[in-house]
């Protein structure tokens, strides 16, 4: 590791703080500082004027804005994200309970997408003009045009209704089974931990369609970046030197070209996470997946706004942290990152 890596990491951490602050400010603005009466929002559609006034006082919505902001931040620090009108439960509690479902989906989709997009991009770059190259270009152009809700529905129709291979898109687990004891919240891992293979298989089957739908969506940017990056690296000077030194084609391609080409791909991961978190909302709706996205949608339909704002805040914070993670990862793997750069 180059000297100063720790300092660079700290710098990145500090750079993430303004973004976190921005997220909090925006959600505050969305919650409180809007045209119309926020109290009416939080009291719900069916509330009487008295109930609305009560809510206004309770939530401190009659106080001056700066004071409201401080109260808001203080409440967040306490873990108070508000309470859901429909379920009566604290929002944070429900978000935390449902987060593992969303995370399992996102992680699996990212793995699948990389497993396809990385080799596709690499092969398209090493065999320009071949069918693989054409396929890559089609995937890249078509992929960004796909509406996730559409692909999800089409896949459900084909693989569930027509072919009967996939189970009904009704959530995380067939009601016949009960979920594994909670360790990580990720069913695949938890089921493996207790060694219950039929349960693992049942969980896996439910995961296939939503994962493929999400993976299809993010295949395009990853494949595009991999191909472009690999093409650029392959035409660079040091590859010519490597070839002139007689290094085998595999060494040149993998140890020299690929490692260098993957660096810019890591930087696109941040953007990819953003796409996935956004599309998870829709995918959870299509497949009845009990994650944070469907929680927010259900609340939205019921005009229950506290969960929605809590969801937006949570997603914002999660995204900032994920980006920070990607930044730190990049700092670790690129030896050229030093204090001076």
């Amino acid at each position, binding site marked *: 590791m*180059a000297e100063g890596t720790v300092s660079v990491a700290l710098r990145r951490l500090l750079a993430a703080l303004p973004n976190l602050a921005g997220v909090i400010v925006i959600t505050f603005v969305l919650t409180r500082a809007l045209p119309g009466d926020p109290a009416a929002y939080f009291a719900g559609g069916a509330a009487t004027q008295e109930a609305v006034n009560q809510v206004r006082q309770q939530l401190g919505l009659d106080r001056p804005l700066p004071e409201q902001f401080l109260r808001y931040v203080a409440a967040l620090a306490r873990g108070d994200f508000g309470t859901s009108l429909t379920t009566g439960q604290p929002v944070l509690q429900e978000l935390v309970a449902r987060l593992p479902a969303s995370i399992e989906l996102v992680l699996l989709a990212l793995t699948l997408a990389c497993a396809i997009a990385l080799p596709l991009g690499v092969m398209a770059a090493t065999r320009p003009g071949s069918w693989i190259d054409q396929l890559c270009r089609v995937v890249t152009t078509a992929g960004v045009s796909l509406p996730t809700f559409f692909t999800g529905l089409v896949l459900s129709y084909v693989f569930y209704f027509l072919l009967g291979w996939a189970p009904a898109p009704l959530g995380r687990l067939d009601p016949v089974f009960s979920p594994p004891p909670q360790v990580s919240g990720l069913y695949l891992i938890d089921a493996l931990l207790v060694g219950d293979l039929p349960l693992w298989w049942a969980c896996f089957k439910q995961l296939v369609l939503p994962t493929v739908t999400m993976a299809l969506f993010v295949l395009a940017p990853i494949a595009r970046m991999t191909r472009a990056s690999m093409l650029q690296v392959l035409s660079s000077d040091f590859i010519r030197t*490597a070839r002139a030194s007689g290094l085998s084609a595999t060494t040149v391609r993998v140890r020299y070209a690929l490692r260098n080409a993957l660096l810019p791909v890591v930087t696109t991961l941040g953007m990819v996470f953003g796409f996935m978190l956004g599309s998870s909302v829709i995918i959870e709706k299509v497949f009845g997946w009990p994650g944070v996205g469907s929680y927010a949608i259900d609340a939205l339909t019921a005009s229950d706004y506290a969960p929605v704002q809590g969801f937006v805040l949570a997603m914002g914070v999660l995204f900032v942290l994920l980006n920070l993670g990607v930044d730190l990862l990049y700092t670790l793997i690129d030896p050229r990152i030093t204090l001076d750069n």
Partner: protein
Amino acid sequence: MTLQPPLLDVQDFSLEFRTRSGTVQALQHVNLRVGKGEIVGLVGESGSGKSVLSYAMLGISDAAAKVTGGSAMFGGIDLLKADEATLLELRGREISMIFQSPRTALNPIRPVGQQIEDVLRRHAVATRGRTGPDAALGLRERAIQALRDVAIADPERRWHAYPFELSGGMCQRVMIAIALACGPGLLIADEPTTGLDVTTQAAVMDLITSLAREREMATLFITHDLGLAADYCDRIVVMHAGHAVESAPTPALFAQPRHPYTARLMSSTPGATSTLQSLLPVPGQLPDLRRSDLPACRFVDRCERAQPRCRESLPPLPPAAEHGVACWYPIGAPEPAHA
């Protein structure tokens, strides 16, 4: 005088590039010889084909390049007809190449010592007969020795350095170390000093020539700088627009250049006592090599000795001659009758 067969014998080498805007006749009937332990300078303007020649011999040309004739004999193998497997064995081991812009020519995210070891490992040098950690130790020692051979101080520590941490001159030394690690018989140096400052240039050239003499290694030194070639090469081959036009031992070339282009090149190269007024440029420009109606001698439009015959045909550069020239009316021969 016993004549040793040349280590590298290029004969009648022709090459073309197929591009979207036409076919470029990049090299035509090039003859070139490098003897064992000899330092030959390949001099010419940009676009004269000097780099293309070496890339084609090593088999690392652009995909659009196509050899259309000739041979390049090296150790009994015709490089131009050899298959990739054969070339892979030769590259880095029997024939090595170093490039310009050394910092970008090295892998930016790999320690330089590791890059030397990659080549050593590939050609199983220093690991033959050893296995496991013993082999690894052999590689490490050999790599450090390679760094020491190119006069890099504190080689044990420098092994771990990345190219961006080293100066341009140091990077070039590392590249030389990589090239020489397996003890090749021929080194091709493609403009190794371009981009370096003058003092570093001299240091790098001194290093290359001393290593070449020490190991009796043949060197093909490609450059556009005639002055530099004059200082370090035993023999110089002048190239113009894809043709090899003159070949002579350095003192002979400078005493009596015979090709009009060589003479022009010399009068445009500054020496220690030149003034701006005394420098004469070579008139005109390189011809567009995509044209299908190129004259036989490509210098004909810029030459004051040109005759109609020069457009029709061109004598080949005699491969075995001490001082050969590819011209009907070389300087020093009877003056052509003016039409």
